[in-house]
């Protein structure tokens, strides 16, 4: 902030239109002017060729590789491969099973959230647990009346969503327990929770996934053969729960002691104090951290391709490899990136909405 900038701000008289105001602010002093020009160069230099590629020279309609003129993006590829990007190699006539599974897990998440907001913690956990088991079994077609589909054929965006919906709830519950454990006055509980969290936060997710995929079958008796997807889910949940725990712990730490003391003074039991007084405040405070962890979870699910499971990114990788389409690398990665961006963006929006709501509630 220089003295020059101060005067530039002051003589912004009302009645000037937005355009002249924009220009005035863009060139308010020498440094700002230079930065504006640089930004313009980057925007025009990168944006114009990109728009030409993605829009003006692109091909949107067609049925095969021949319909792309190859002067711009070949979005026909994405349209033609939509099934694979969404469902992997899941048999086409059985994809309704996946849709039902998605609906069940979405309903489970919404239902559990609604129950938790009414302080029905046990009900929320039960609804969520049932929905997880159901959606997993429906996805694999293991309920009577459905057709079984092997894990190797699962894939695409729906696999990413299934991983997320299972991972987010399980690791949230585990994380809540761990956070309470780290704050416990009982030394055994506290040290176990601390060692666990510090260990998980010090090791890359890929190493955890390798351990889960390669070592879990070695650790369990030869009969108990957990399927590949389950092993990966276990790995992701164990990892993410430590980050959830830290986010929740920050919130628990910030709840004023007076709140707890007031609850005890009213005669609330320990459990009710936690459920009705401490956690609602702690979760509100740690909402940004929790949303960040969830966004990280969405992004981390892409790492499963390293252990041979084809989620959205993995299916994109496979679709790109189809030689019939030639070089469609940019189209594929751009599409996958856009979908990930959309998912994370929606999560951020939900988080902001909840934050605003909580702020209104406390301001009242």
């Amino acid at each position, binding site marked *: *902030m220089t003295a020059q900038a101060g005067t530039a701000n002051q003589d912004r008289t009302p009645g000037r239109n937005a355009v002249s105001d924009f220009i005035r602010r863009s060139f308010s002093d020498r440094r700002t002017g230079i930065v504006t020009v640089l930004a313009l160069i980057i925007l025009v230099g990168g944006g114009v060729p990109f728009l030409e590629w993605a829009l003006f020279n692109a091909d949107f309609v067609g049925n095969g590789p021949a319909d792309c003129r190859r002067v711009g993006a070949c979005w026909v590829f994405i349209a033609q491969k939509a099934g694979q990007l969404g469902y992997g190699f899941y048999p086409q006539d059985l994809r309704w099973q996946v849709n039902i599974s998605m609906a069940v897990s979405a309903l489970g998440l919404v239902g559990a959230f609604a129950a938790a907001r009414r302080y029905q913690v046990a009900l929320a956990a039960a609804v969520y647990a049932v929905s997880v088991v159901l959606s997993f079994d429906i996805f694999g077609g293991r309920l009577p009346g459905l057709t079984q589909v092997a894990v190797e054929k699962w894939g695409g965006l729906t696999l990413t969503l299934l991983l997320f919906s299972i991972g987010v709830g399980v690791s949230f519950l585990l994380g809540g327990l761990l956070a309470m454990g780290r704050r416990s006055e009982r030394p055994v509980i506290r040290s176990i929770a601390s060692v666990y969290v510090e260990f998980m936060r010090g090791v890359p997710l890929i190493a955890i996934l390798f351990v889960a995929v390669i070592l879990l079958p070695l650790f369990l008796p030869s009969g108990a053969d957990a399927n590949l997807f389950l092993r990966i889910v276990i790995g992701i949940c164990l990892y993410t729960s430590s980050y959830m725990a830290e986010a929740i712990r920050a919130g628990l730490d910030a709840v004023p002691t007076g709140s707890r003391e007031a609850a005890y003074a009213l005669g609330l039991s320990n459990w009710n104090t936690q459920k009705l007084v401490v956690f609602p405040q702690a979760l509100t405070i740690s909402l940004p951290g929790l949303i960040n962890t969830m966004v990280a979870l969405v*992004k*981390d699910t892409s790492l499963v391709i390293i252990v041979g499971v084809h989620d959205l990114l993995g299916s994109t990788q496979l679709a790109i490899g189809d030689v019939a389409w030639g070089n469609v690398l940019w189209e594929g990665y751009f599409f996958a990136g856009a979908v990930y961006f959309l998912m994370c963006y929606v999560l951020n929006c939900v988080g902001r909405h909840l934050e605003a709501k909580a702020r209104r509630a406390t301001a009242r």
Partner: protein
Amino acid sequence: MLAHLEATAPKASWMRRVLARGDLVGSLVQIALVAALAGGAWYIVSSTMANLSSRGITTGFAFLSRPAGFDVAFSLLPFTSASPLWMALLVGITNTLFLAVTGMVLGTLLAFAVVSFRLSKSPLASGLAAGYIGLFRNTPILLHLLFWYFAVFAAMPNIRNGLVLEDAIFLNNRGLFVPWPQLSGWGWLIACVLALLPIAASRWMRRQHPTSAFARIDLSLLLGLVLFVAVVVIAATSWEVPVRAGLGMRGGALVIPELMAVIVAMCTYSSAFIAELLRGAIQGIDRGQTEAGQALGLHAGAISRLIVFPQAIRVVIPPLTNQYVNMIKQTAIVAAIAFPDLMLIMGKTVLTQTGQAIESLMIVTSVYLIISLTAAGLMHLYAAKLKAVGQR
């Protein structure tokens, strides 16, 4: 004051606290927890032993002294397929650290550029930087890595059609070939020492004349770089220039496409996160500090360098530590493009070659753990030192 009292109060023994009086439920729960953990551990160990013996796998770390039998595509240490496996482990560790440090330095430098756009008064630049940050924060790093590798660097034209600059620098699908100076070990050492001199001088100058140009860390870094290059250019006996030889290339230094992809992906990705941390820290500094600087007649650059930045650094150290530790762990994703880091060498190559799954993964996880805990510990020490300066 309170902490002082607590520290001097006699501390109950650990066992006492476990079996605290009046906390029967707590004691029972803790004993049950210990028993459950021990039981679980015993269960896992016994079934693992049974599984191993039925598969005929012997345990132990003796396999580390066997010859590797594989080559690595990138190594800072001398390594051949005849080297022992523990040497491969060292190569993996140095490669991981190399990636992490390169990513940290370049990512932080890029983050300064991004944050200067983000905090600029120009709406256009600020919006552009916000878009950049949003783009990277909401997409997986693996996507960026795969994009830079498969769609950019591995998709370069072949050696014959690749880019050539002045017949000395070649960029093609085998990587980037640059001329390399022939310099003795002493030459490198002198160059490094001379490069560090201006930086040390600027730290000294900072205490004597904080407003002088010689106290500026950015200028001294630049000067150090110039000195380094000058010494290398002067002292080099000759330069090894890469040339096309048949279907391949000969001579010069090679940066393989995998490495370029990792560095570009890590830098751009982490710069968005670091920029966001820096923005939070800079905006958190009280406006009165800037105004006080203006009242003293300092110009904008001096205010940010001498007043805003030192305070912002103090605020940003803890989250930045987290970010750096995350980056060390993040380097493990390069296994996806087969760059030989710790994860790929130990967790994949050695594991599949020797079949020693438990030992290999145990080494991988403990090395990552040691690196991240050490990095976090060092950063905490630094933060404590900064805090002490602030309290003086």
